[in-house]
């Protein structure tokens, strides 16, 4: 997967969890939770969907890496580029 593919995968997951949110204007550098109304359970669901869909494990100590879209993509790239 490329960085763009991972970004799209994250968008698809967020869309499934919060279908009514507008995800078109997300600023990749800003924290996701400042832009989308996600609570901690929504956030955990993103992690669980990554495991379900791509068998990617995000250990709890790495949750901070998923702060913004670009930090998320950077963090996931080594785990997902071979997919």
């Amino acid at each position, binding site marked *: 997967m490329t960085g763009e593919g991972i970004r799209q995968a994250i968008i698809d997951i967020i869309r499934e969890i919060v279908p009514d949110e507008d995800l078109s204007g997300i600023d990749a550098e800003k924290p996701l939770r400042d832009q989308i*109304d996600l609570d901690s359970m929504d956030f955990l669901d993103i992690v669980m969907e990554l495991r379900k869909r791509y068998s990617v494990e995000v250990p709890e100590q790495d949750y901070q890496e998923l702060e913004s879209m670009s930090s998320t993509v950077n963090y996931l790239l080594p785990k997902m580029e071979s997919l």
Partner: protein
Amino acid sequence: MRYDVVIIGAGMSGLSAGVRLAHFGKKVAILERHYRVGGLNSFYRSGGYDLDVGLHAVTNYSPDGPKSAPMARLLRRLRMRMSDLELYPQKVSRIVFPDATLEFTNDFDHLARQSGKLFPGQEESLRRLKDEVFRLYENNFSGAPKSARRFASSFITAPDLVEMLMCPVMFYGSAWENDMEGGQFALLFMSLYCEGFARPKNGIRPILDLLVERYKNSGGEMRLRSGVQRIEVLKGKAVGVVLDNGDTIECEAILSSAGLMETIAICPEASPVDLAPEAGRMSFAESINIIDRPADELGLDASITFFSANRKFRYRRSALPVDVQSGVICVPGNFCYDEPPDTHMVRITNIADPGFWEGADKAGYEKGKIEWRDKSLEVVETIVPEFSDSVTYFDMFTPRTIRKFTGHINGAVYGSPTKLGDGKTPVENVFVCGTDQGYLGVVGSMISGVEIANQRLL
């Protein structure tokens, strides 16, 4: 065949847990003793009519509320949308006591103003109580007062208003007699008065169908007529279940929605060591009266009416087969539907004594239904306009019906007074969800299933 999780009971909590677990790839089987799903919120057919057993209304209706509201949170966990539930809001509900009638809608301000009119000075008290309820919700009810009565009275200084506010809340969720656990009161106060009532037009069945469909589509397995006779425990760990027919099923973990005492009955090792749990004592009888015209044509305009013929609301096991001195009158047709429903009915719920109904022989049981339904109607028709001349058919369910179809000891609708909060039992891989985990009502039981699945099994 070995499952990751076996769920006992296909009620709202078991189904919701199943949807969540199957969605994330767990190999799940739901085992239900009855031939139909739903548990305490099921449905049946009688006299050619589709009738609900549990549901009067879905609480926690807040379509435009914050995303932190219980129903919004729940729906996100189940990957559902509010529109999937096809809910229609209530019109108006009333609390009718001897000296006062309090009206409430899905707008808390209406209740607050009404309270202030009837009980001078109490509007502000009620608003402060509401603020405290929301503060407790944000803090997961930690530090919630033990007694609901004392909690409410610490804000509201008019004792009659406390009684009136307790009435719907206790009817819709207290496993205790005479009082209620403070945290549960707070949650239900919010669910009933601050958020509100709504109903799916065709009753509970479409919601059940939706949950079952989601569950099966995610790979979950459903086995009806499959009661669990025993949970097999080996060295402090459950290894599987034995069904009523003797079949065994192996699994890694068990989530029981059967109730705490009911789970202990099939798994004595699951009895909490630090508590002495008891069976619930509060059960109800309900008559479902089909009428030949819309109820509002007869002057019954409320969605739900809660009443007490005594100024002090008595919520305790009935000494008589049915305690007709208080009750809940639900008119399922009086919700804001897009088009009027085909069947019109008035449902009347009263506290009932399980002992009488369990002990009666067949003739006595049938006679009792007619006798006590008539006695109940006599009082009800002093509370709302008369409608009995328009009744074309009626059926009644009793504590015995509830026990028979849900397995709840005493037909206790709200389960044991002992709630398990964290869902854990002394058997490391046996968990409890549903009524005796602590959340109540349709939305509450679904939240219970999702939360325990999340915390213990995912």
